[in-house]
């Protein structure tokens, strides 16, 4: 099993994802976007960073790179795909997931730990947790405010697509606990299949025990669960 971490020009969390996955015993390799998806890909990470310098719109240029057609095809076939931060923006821009992540309410870049509540525990990405668990995972973005039209959001919620919501330490969603003004506190969601997920917080930054807490390990373990 090898997880492909797609590196675009400007990706900068690709090595971090590789290190974190390897720590969990999950084989991973960084794939340059122009080289195409390797045949033996059993999982895909769209890593954080500033693909194409975020010029035009965060994630917009990378979403139109030829490799994304291969990623969408793989996703349709059930290959697990995880988009983190800029990767989440790319995921929405390329219709792997719905909605968009846009400029924070503060209009500033925010790097800080936040709490998220696990909304479902029956996806590969959350199987390690229980519904209602509160995880502390850092964010680092200027454009993380989840936006989608109200009707569609209601449908997404009906379809149980919301994976994580920002919350306080006790698991309550409050305006103060929502760091960027995301609609309905959405921090992450799944696509048409549960094997495709995007989130703004960085699980790879809370995976390595030698630099701190490890609340994010379960998310990355999703690659192992998904292929069991």
């Amino acid at each position: 099993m090898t997880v492909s971490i797609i590196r675009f020009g400007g990706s900068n969390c690709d090595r971090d994802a590789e290190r974190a996955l390897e720590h969990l015993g999950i084989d991973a390799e960084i794939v340059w976007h122009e080289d195409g998806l390797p045949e033996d890909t059993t999982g895909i990470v769209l890593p954080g960073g500033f693909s194409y310098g975020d010029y035009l719109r965060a994630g917009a240029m990378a979403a139109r790179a030829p490799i994304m057609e291969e990623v969408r095809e793989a996703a349709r076939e059930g290959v697990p795909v995880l988009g983190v931060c800029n990767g989440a923006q790319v995921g929405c821009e390329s219709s792997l997931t719905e909605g968009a992540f846009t400029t924070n309410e503060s209009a500033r870049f925010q790097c800080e730990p936040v709490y998220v509540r696990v909304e479902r525990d029956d996806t590969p990405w959350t199987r390690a947790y229980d519904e209602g668990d509160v995880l502390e995972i850092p964010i680092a973005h200027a454009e993380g405010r989840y936006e989608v039209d109200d009707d569609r959001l209601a449908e997404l919620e009906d379809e149980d697509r919301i994976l994580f919501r920002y919350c306080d330490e006790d698991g309550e969603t409050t305006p103060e606990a929502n760091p960027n003004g995301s609609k309905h506190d959405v921090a992450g969601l799944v696509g048409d299949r549960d094997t495709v997920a995007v989130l703004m917080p960085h699980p790879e930054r809370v995976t390595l025990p030698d630099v701190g807490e490890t609340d994010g390990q379960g998310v990355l373990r999703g690659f192992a669960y998904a292929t069991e």
Partner: protein
Amino acid sequence: MSLADSDRELVVEELGREPTPAEAALFENLWSEHCAYRSSRPLLSAFESEGEQVVVGPGDDAAVVALPTDDTSSADADHASGRADEKEEDVYITMGIESHNHPSYVDPFDGAATGVGGIVRDTLSMGAYPIALADSLYFGAFDREHSKYLLEGVVEGISHYGNCIGVPTVAGSVDFHPDYEGNPLVNVACVGLLTEDRLVTAEAQEPGNKLVLVGNATGRDGLGGASFASEDLAEDAETEDRPAVQVGDPYAEKLLIEANEALIDEDLVESARDLGAAGLGGASSEMVAKGGLGARIELERVHQREPNMSALEILLAESQERMCYEVEPKNVERVREIAEKFDLGCSVIGEVTEGNYVCTFEGETVVDVDAHFLGEGAPMNDLPTEAPAEPETDLPETDLEEAFEAVLSSPNTASKRWVYRQYDHEVGVRTSVPPGDDAAVMAIREAEQGLAISSGAAPNWTSTAPFEGAKAVTLENATNLAAKGATPLAAVDCLNGGNPEKPDVYGGFQAIVDGLAETCADLSVPVVGGNVSLYNDSVAGPIPPTPTLAMVGTKSGYDAPPLSAKPEGDLVLVGDLALERGEFRLGGSEYLAQFDGDDRFPVLPGEPAAFVETLADVADADETLAVHDVSHGGLAVSLAEMVDEDAGLAVSLPDGVDVEGALFHEQPARALVQTADPDAVREAFDGVAPVVELGEGTDDGRLTIDAGDDVLEYDAAAIRENRSVIEDELE
């Protein structure tokens, strides 16, 4: 500004003819204060820059320092992980620091952003991968709208650039002082990582090798930046000098970082230099001068983004995100392929020769000079100095509670969360101790070492007493590292001063150089590189002499004691010489800055090395619960910073002590240690530094200071409210 008459005479004498316009412009820029350190170099010999850990000292793009190989601990770790034979190459770090002061005044966003870009490329040109940034920023009084505008722009510029290139900003400092009103300072340090086999220098190696320019296309931006940085800021600088400010493209820089890594992976680079001050002319001539060689460059081969550029413009433009590589002819094609993969421009502009440094443009020779004379021929200035005056003593009468709150809510001592929250300080997954603590700690897994980083200066200190203040800045940075259990390894400095032609300004500058040098030597910390920025002077007057020091230290393991107190455990204060003596000097304190007083600077410890070493040991002891350096704002602020909702502190000052003195004096080389075993701390510091038991942790989240007739009492929320002035004002 043009080439000074006396310099022109020297050039004419050397060349035996009048310089061409391109040559005159090259000499003007490379012989400027910014590039040639004409006023400061005579002073810089005070620094001790050698040590067994120093691989490359001052004079290259960045310094290179070997990380210690901790034989015992690494052997254990290797054994545990079963990877004993993986560690072969020595692991090095690079350290560099740069100022981008004048550009940041004129255009705070782009000025600060390109400052980050420049120091990162200095890291690349040593073959290293950048792993950490530290920014020390200095602005005029925070209540001035213009200061806030500059702060917002500078922080946004650093955030924009540093975040995008994926290099975490983990440390730094922000200070406010009225004398920066007309001239803010932006000092940026970068730490890079490499193994010994990847080391590259700026010294050209072999005639016949090609010079290859990789990166952004050259435009007319930043023309004359080096000479712009070498004169006082004019009143109309914000409008008139904008063309001298470069505009950065962090996306191109990120591509350059990865392309550089690929070039080093494949061993394609013989020597390298980034294009900074004085552009292509500066970088290429310095490379060949270092190798005792020459070059032949065809300027029209440079890839350009504007039409009809002249030879002089191509030579001196400071367009960003460009590197000059010396490449063996057989490797040129591969370098071109790698540049292409990363969408970077690439042009083979000429080659290394044994002759002069020669540039041609469309067949015509526009520069033909000896590279060594160009780089090293600038005459040094021997300027008169005037020793700084000793401050008088004139202490204000204050109400204790009012004083406590004024000092705690001063923007200088207040929380800088508003700043570092805008920096990605975790990308790279090495940050073990993030900003907001005494020092950052990074995991250098390649060497199994924790790397602690501290950067800063203290304008209140050095404006009161430049010499003692600079010594104190050194002690303060070393204490920051030791508080997190690290032993200092090396430092780089960024020396900022006003117009050196004013004897009192130059005297103050000399004093900060001597102060830093003396205390770094006392601590056996080699000063391996640095940067000098003079002419930080405007109609508002000179800046305080400002010696930013970025110091790194190492420790085994990546974790460190927290800054925050625990609900239980005794609190001791170590190193407070004034408290032991019962005689306090408040000079340089935030307390006097708030209440307009004067006093002499605190007495500093005579033998600080033992203090730093002992504190580092104590910090890592099992019984140690929390450690916090005591500095800006004195004991009062440090105590308050340790309190949060989960843990409080109940403290009693010794009977009969001068309360304002004890709480607000700012003698460095002190720390608060919370411990389960105060006797062990006392024993460790026996004969090294005084230890005073102050009180203990509580579970009520309150700070209580029993000061004889007065009792100060604040809960965590009140402390936070006082400390949040910057974010309250700017959110």
